[in-house]
């Protein structure tokens, strides 16, 4: 579990973090910048995503086609996405091509062409992606849940809306990029096989002309309660459910996360056992922790044929509430065992480590070591979990269902 976090701050404020994993042949890096969907003007939903897409269609000396071909030539795997608070760009490649890969990433950040000729094509792509969600009811259900729970600003999907996408002009993208693609307030996290001094030197030179800060902070997130049903001609009813929990930066986060683990991690978890194994109600059922800065939630999903949907919803909620009756020490021991394995296996992937480092920095302002996480998990007791559950009982419910018929859900109003 030996690990060391390398840290350097450029004069322009960009924070660079690194963790060497010399046993790997690969290196991965993740940029996180504060251009999330919550920064979009209300009538431009989808702007963050469209700006990100367009920034990759030609940058520096590279045309749109050159960017793709150059990255393919170097064998770089890449992904980029937009979330509520951040724009994220990640790349992974063999250690030998780190420098040219960073050069391309820097071009995309610093010198995007924003070609007028590509705006329409990028817009059409975004509209198609938005439309395709309609044919995936489970995914749509989550999109609607977030919208209902976190409101127009913080619940906005990264895919945007048809009206928002249609309204975006090239100037909007250029403005959004120049406002939020700033070094001060952003982080670059590297993990894998690299030479730290060389990396710092390269970045000093690549980013010497980059300057500025994103000076405003988004306001606090306040979750909404309530229930919505969306009629859909389908065999299954999709149930997405949320309730309040402590967020990632809360001192008791690991207790809250531990409870979600008891509920949903692994095949012996409560939800899998009660909803699927004992009753055969579903193929898929799950719960996960979700944080939007100060606002924590547990998000749950279950999909079942419509005539069993009411029962599925009730069993799911009862299973969650039944945590109040206590947690078994064997369950807790299984949870600890699973966390330990996944922490050890994190050392096998430069990509997962680099994105975790960037995420931790943005959400916590620091990067906990594996040992620290492990110590937190080992310190959990059945009593501490139960106490946490009693002090933070599930409340503030939000429910979205998609399917032929609406379901009864009294929790939305009564708690």
């Amino acid at each position, binding site marked *: 579990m030996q690990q060391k976090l390398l840290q350097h701050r450029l004069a322009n404020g960009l924070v660079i973090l690194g963790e060497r994993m010399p046993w790997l042949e690969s290196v991965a890096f993740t940029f996180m910048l504060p251009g999330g969907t919550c920064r979009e003007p209300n009538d431009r939903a989808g702007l963050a995503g469209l700006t990100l897409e367009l920034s990759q269609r030609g940058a520096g000396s590279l045309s749109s086609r050159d960017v793709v071909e150059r990255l393919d030539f170097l064998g770089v795997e890449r992904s980029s996405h937009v979330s509520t608070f951040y724009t994220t760009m990640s790349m992974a490649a063999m250690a030998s091509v780190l420098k040219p890969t960073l050069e391309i990433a820097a071009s995309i950040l610093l010198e995007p062409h924003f070609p007028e000729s590509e705006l329409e094509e990028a817009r059409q792509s975004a509209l198609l992606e938005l439309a395709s969600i309609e044919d995936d009811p489970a995914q749509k259900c989550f999109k609607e849940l977030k919208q209902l729970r976190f409101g127009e600003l913080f619940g906005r999907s990264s895919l945007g809306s048809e009206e928002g996408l249609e309204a975006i002009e090239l100037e909007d993208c250029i403005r959004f990029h120049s406002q939020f693609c700033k070094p001060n307030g952003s982080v670059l996290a590297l993990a894998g096989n690299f030479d730290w001094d060389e990396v710092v030197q390269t970045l000093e030179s690549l980013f010497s002309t980059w300057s500025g800060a994103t000076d405003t902070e988004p306001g606090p997130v306040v979750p909404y309660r309530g229930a919505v049903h969306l009629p859909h001609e389908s065999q299954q009813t999709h149930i997405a459910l949320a309730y309040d929990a402590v967020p990632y930066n809360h001192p008791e986060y690991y207790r809250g996360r531990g409870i979600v683990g008891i509920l949903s991690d692994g095949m012996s978890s409560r939800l899998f056992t009660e909803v699927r194994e004992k009753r055969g109600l579903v193929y898929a059922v799950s719960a996960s922790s979700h944080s939007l800065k100060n606002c924590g939630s547990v998000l749950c999903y279950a999909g079942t044929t419509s005539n069993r949907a009411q029962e599925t919803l009730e069993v799911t909620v009862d299973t969650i509430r039944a945590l109040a009756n206590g947690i078994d020490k064997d369950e807790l021991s299984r949870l600890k065992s699973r966390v330990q394995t996944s922490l050890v*296996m994190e050392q096998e992937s430069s990509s997962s480590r680099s994105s975790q480092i960037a995420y931790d920095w943005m959400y916590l302002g620091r990067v906990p070591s594996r040992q620290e996480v492990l110590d937190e998990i080992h310190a959990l007791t059945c009593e501490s979990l139960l106490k946490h559950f009693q002090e933070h009982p599930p409340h503030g419910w939000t429910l979205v269902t998609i399917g032929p018929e609406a379901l009864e859900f009294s929790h939305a109003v009564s708690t």
Partner: protein
Amino acid sequence: MQFRHEVLENGLEIVAEVNPDAFSQSLGYFVRTGARDETPEIAGVSHFLEHMMFKGTPTRTSLDVNRALDDLGSQSNAYTSEEQTVYYMSVLPEHQSAALDLLTDMMRPTLHQEDFDTEKQVILEEIAMYDDQPPYGAMERAMEEYFGDHPLSTRVLGTRETVSGLTAEAMRAYHRQRYAPGNVCLVASGAVDFESLVREAAERTGRWEPANTDRKRIVPHPTVAEVTMVHPPATQQYTLEYSPSPSILDPQRYVYRILASILGDDSGSRMFWELTDKGLADMAVAFTNEFEDCGIFGLYLACAPEQQSENWERIESILRGARTQAITDKELELAKNKVRAGMILASERPSNRLFSIGNAWLSRRKYETVREATENYQRVTRDEVQAAFEQLANRVQVRVSVGPEPEA
């Protein structure tokens, strides 16, 4: 990195790629059985059985199995395809013995009637879940149309009717036949103690009874077909086309995989630049899918219904371009680099290596290091890819499209 191989007296093969420096190890039972080994009346039994393997053994209840999997902190799962069923887990090296004990025990399930009845409901939910996703229906139908009465036409999930009609007795008979030791391979990767693995596997599988587990290899004879299905709630049109390509045993398959990448990778390919990048399609890709006796070259398009026919014509035009727009050296180099980097990056996890090693052994009885595996692609020449490209012009294709009601 060391390759190890052993055959037990009962015929069970054990293969491993041992890397003492790895942080974890992965173990898997690869069973040479799947949808193609089913008769029509028991369609879906391989997949249903895969679920039932988690539902209890002579020494463990269903809950015990699930708890034991989590006790080991394992990341475990299983899947069923047309040709194989695989059960796997990744654990820390110190848990090898306990992991093997559990996984081996699971391979001889009790198949109790009550568990069978409950799990049948879960399978029917899985079928309903996919029924609500229009592209999945197109994939199942395209396989049926392409393969006709060939065993590969069998749906992996079965149908609502075949699954509802399945009996625990039929499943037991299938299990006795198909899970005989000669039809199963134990695969391991990462920080593995191979000597203990062999010794303990021999102890735990000693009573497994051999059976005759032939699989007939038949060359399919697809005929041209075009089917349009309506899925009223759909908003997009999904079109899938299959045509013949090399089997998993044919060295030509690397040529076709490179060709699929050049024509239809999800980024940087001819279809990408012509359709996806221009915002004409949500997805336009080409891929290969290989089986023991044949392979299929697939094309997939997801787009707005009103743009489907124009878009498909664009794809056709790319495929007709073999003579006018020959494959270039640059395209070949990019495709090779992409494949090589992807394979090397993925190989850093023992859990990914498990599948490469297991699949190669089950289908070809061959072990290749990651470097050797990438060499197979490096050897492909431009002329070979060009020749395969030209063949596509004369392909026999089966096309299935699904979308909303056409507008009047």
